[in-house]
């Protein structure tokens, strides 16, 4: 699988580090409700289909970016701004 680094272009997946689901929204600072934090930290949509996720080009320019990928096919939708 090749991933499109916004800085370096298409590179092999082995150069990247996966950073998890990017659609999660971190609860506001100071949120006291533990259920909200539990859901943020531990629960996953884990869709079979379109997924937005973080990757870092760790063995290249070290840039973090958001990527659209289909988890059912590994088809790359492109970098999401």
């Amino acid at each position: 699988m090749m991933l499109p680094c916004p800085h370096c272009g298409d590179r092999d997946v082995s150069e990247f580090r996966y950073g998890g689901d990017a659609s999660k929204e971190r609860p506001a600072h100071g949120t006291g409700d533990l259920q909200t934090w539990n859901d943020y930290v531990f629960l996953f949509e884990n869709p079979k289909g379109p997924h937005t996720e973080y990757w870092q080009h760790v063995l290249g320019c070290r840039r973090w970016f958001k990527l659209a990928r289909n988890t059912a096919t590994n088809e790359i939708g492109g970098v999401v701004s």
Partner: protein
Amino acid sequence: MSKHYSALALARHALDPDMPWPKAWESPEPKSSYDVVIVGGGGHGLATAYYLAKNHGITNVAVIEKSYIGSGNVGRNTTLIRSNYMIGGNTAFFEHSLKLWEGLSHELNFNCMVSQRGQIVLAVNPVQMDVFARRGNTMRLNGIDAELLDAGEVRKLLPYLDWSRDARWPIHGAIMQPRAGTVRHDAVAWGYARAASALGVHIIENCEVTGFVINDGKVSGVDTSRGRINAGKVGIAVAGHTSHVAKMAGLKLPVESHILQAFVTEPIKPIVDNVISWGAELFYLSQSDKGGLVFGGHIDGFNTYTQRGQFNRIQTVAECAVSLMPFISRLRMLRHWGGIQDMTPDGSPFISRTPVKNLYLNGGWCYQGFKATPASGWTYSHTIAHDQEHELVRDFALDRFEKGKELDEFGLGNWTYKQ
């Protein structure tokens, strides 16, 4: 027609070639209603159905499988069994599983080819020896067999490893579980299916569950590609696709689906007569009865439902194999394949009730699904029959994260892809 497999039956069938062996399990039309419906006809689902009938007398049970028996992870793993766990919630459960494996072929009247060839985990530095000593002591305190071996003892057992002075990862010793080993994985699915069918369980293949019938927070059946089937209770056992199926019941789970690859080399003469795991990297191997070396490694590292592995993982696993056993460097890789497994934030599974009444969950098995199969069926059937978790799986509860009761064997934290 011999229903019971035995030497005598074999002789009778050999002498009379016109006498057909009966089908191992029946293929009935689905009824409109069952006491219990199990979603997923893999090892865990079939074992659950078998123990529901055998241990709890509940025989009006259907196992619904979207493909054919043996098509999923029960036929895709590296066939290892072991119980070398250290923390409270795991030790007794996996030891119970190993004890069930030890008698499984007799229990099911089906040769599962259980081979207790011993698992040897190699230490590549002195610190790992200390860690292994602690693990071994904990195991022995729990009544599980463990032997700490020094480098000389390991060398006697495994003379073919790289013992040269300039080995990249010099071997300092090992911890061995002599009762660990391998099992023929397809036979587990077929054996449980046959034994469950003989007790009256309906095994319904090529039937996909498309939804749950839920009213007032209580499940009363499933919609399938072959119509609605009513059920008193429904158990999910679809690891790999647990999030996907549970979502139909409105549940969002602490699970991500990841691909784990496995590898087989071309066959060679018998040399590796134990299971070997390596301390330098997550890598393990055994030799199959056909002679191929079976390798396993780490997950690819990002969530996916495609059963197609990435090349960089193939390279890492091949590098591990060659640095451990340089003489196999010219062997060719015959096959590699992938299976989708549920990864959880603490690397431990779920056997649990759910927020939906009469709906139960079995999933989140990470790397340990196959070796858990008998105990999973044993405890999940109890959980379903009594609407109460079996005492061996009280720590496998779905709500353990919000209660601060993570079961993190390696202390890795809440990243599914690092477990």
